[in-house]
């Protein structure tokens, strides 16, 4: 029974929405009924348009995330471990961090046009900073006492890193990961809406031109579903990797 509780409110909203549309309280040009949106979803799925657009958007999202996330992670680790690296690079990163990555859109369009590189660039710059900041913080806040113990018990620098530093930083890295995932979708939506010839955002903008409100709503819901999926995967990973930590054990 408890499993269904969170779904009661969404279901009620859907029912109210459908009812309001059927009674004519909501005009179909403004907000089509859920059943109409469902039909549009079905139509897009049957034609294959839906899948190819999801695939393209997902590739952009994951590609950008991989690039930005791994660079941010690597730099966070290196600045966390080496004070020389931090002195050298942190100030620069913190300066660049204050530029909203979406402000780069005009420049990015000039550089890359509306090609794939433009989306990858925007998504990876968006993901980079939360990953960097949180990884650095995680590595920095590793328990000094545990490091001292590791050294006193003769762990090599290598195993000190993998057995003490990395696991200690992991909760923080996951915070960066989930933060990055949010920014990943946000950036991608904007990029695809402004300049693209494929993808979910393009599907929405294209439908707008033809006043297909149902398809626009399908696109928005797709973003919501994909965002939720990504977050669920991250949470699953978090729970699996941090099973030792009572704060992450599912009760």
């Amino acid at each position, binding site marked *: 029974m408890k499993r269904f509780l969170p779904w009661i409110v969404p279901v009620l909203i859907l029912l109210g929405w459908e009812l309001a549309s059927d009674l004519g309280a909501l005009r179909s040009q403004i907000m089509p009924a859920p059943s109409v949106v469902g039909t549009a979803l079905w139509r897009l799925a049957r034609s294959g348009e839906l899948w190819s657009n999801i695939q393209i958007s997902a590739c952009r999202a994951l590609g950008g995330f991989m690039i930005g996330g791994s660079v941010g992670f690597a730099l966070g680790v290196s600045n966390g471990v080496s004070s020389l690296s931090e002195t050298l690079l942190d100030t620069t990163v913190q300066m660049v961090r204050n530029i909203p990555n979406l402000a780069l859109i005009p420049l990015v369009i000039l550089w890359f046009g509306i090609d794939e590189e433009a989306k990858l660039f925007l998504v990876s710059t968006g993901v980079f900073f939360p990953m960097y900041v949180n990884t650095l913080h995680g590595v920095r806040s590793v328990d000094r*006492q*545990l490091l*001292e*113990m*590791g*050294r*006193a*018990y*003769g*762990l090599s620098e290598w195993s000190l890193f993998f*057995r*003490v530093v990395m*696991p*200690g930083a*992991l909760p923080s890295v996951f915070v960066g990961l989930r933060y990055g995932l949010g920014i990943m979708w946000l950036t991608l939506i904007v990029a695809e809406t402004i300049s693209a010839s494929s993808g979910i955002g393009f599907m929405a903008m294209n439908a707008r031109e033809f006043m297909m409100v149902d398809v626009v709503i399908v696109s928005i819901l797709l973003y919501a579903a994909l965002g939720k999926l990504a977050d669920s995967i991250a949470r699953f990973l978090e729970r699996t990797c*941090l*099973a*030792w*930590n*009572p704060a992450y054990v599912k009760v």
Partner: protein
Amino acid sequence: MTVDVFNTEPDSAIRASTEGATVGLRGVMKSFGTNTVLHGIDLDIPAGQFVAIVGRSGCGKSTLLRLIAGLDTPNAGTIQIDGQPGPWRDSVRLMFQEPRLLPWQRVVANVEVGLPRGPDRHRIAKDVLAQVGLAGRDNDWPAVLSGGQKQRVALARALASHPRLLAFDEPLGALDALTRIEMQDLIERVWAAKGFTAIVVTHDVAEAVALADRILLLEEGRVAMDVPVNLPRPRRRGDPEAAAIEGRILEQLLSPG
């Protein structure tokens, strides 16, 4: 009640052992910035002796222990263990005031931290866990253990490599009274069985009298008293002779200047 610092010859009643390491300190001085914590300590500990170091907070007892355990280096003077100037690697182990277990590793993996790489690592770790009374808890996370059990795991980790010298930095300070007594008994038992040299830093004089062959009282970075405790083991709690020794040491500790 002055005690000759240099007169630290082992008492005839004190057991000698081939399993334990000898410790020799000559003129050991340690300062942090302008603050000198240890003023030229000279000390000889014969193999297998159980030594307790007591003193007020800030008297330098923890610093001395960290020097002996190789976590810090003295500013002047030499420390030799088994006649070697160090590094002593896994023949010297330190047990901290906190358990300092890796929370992301299971209990048995935490004990393996104390062992060099090898095929028998896992089996040895399980054996040592059983020796400290934690058989069957190998795959628990440290988070589910009580404070006393965590310190047992830390003890197992320290014992795993068969150290010749085991140093304890107030390892029982955070435990409740009953768990403390159980841990004291456990430490005394493993010490008697393994024969390593033991140095325990404590602020609890009663604990020192219950465990040690010899008690060093540190005051302002110097050895102010060196008291042999020639009481038979296992020691009964509330023994009048023990109480007399405790009284003498407390008197010195509480005396002003």
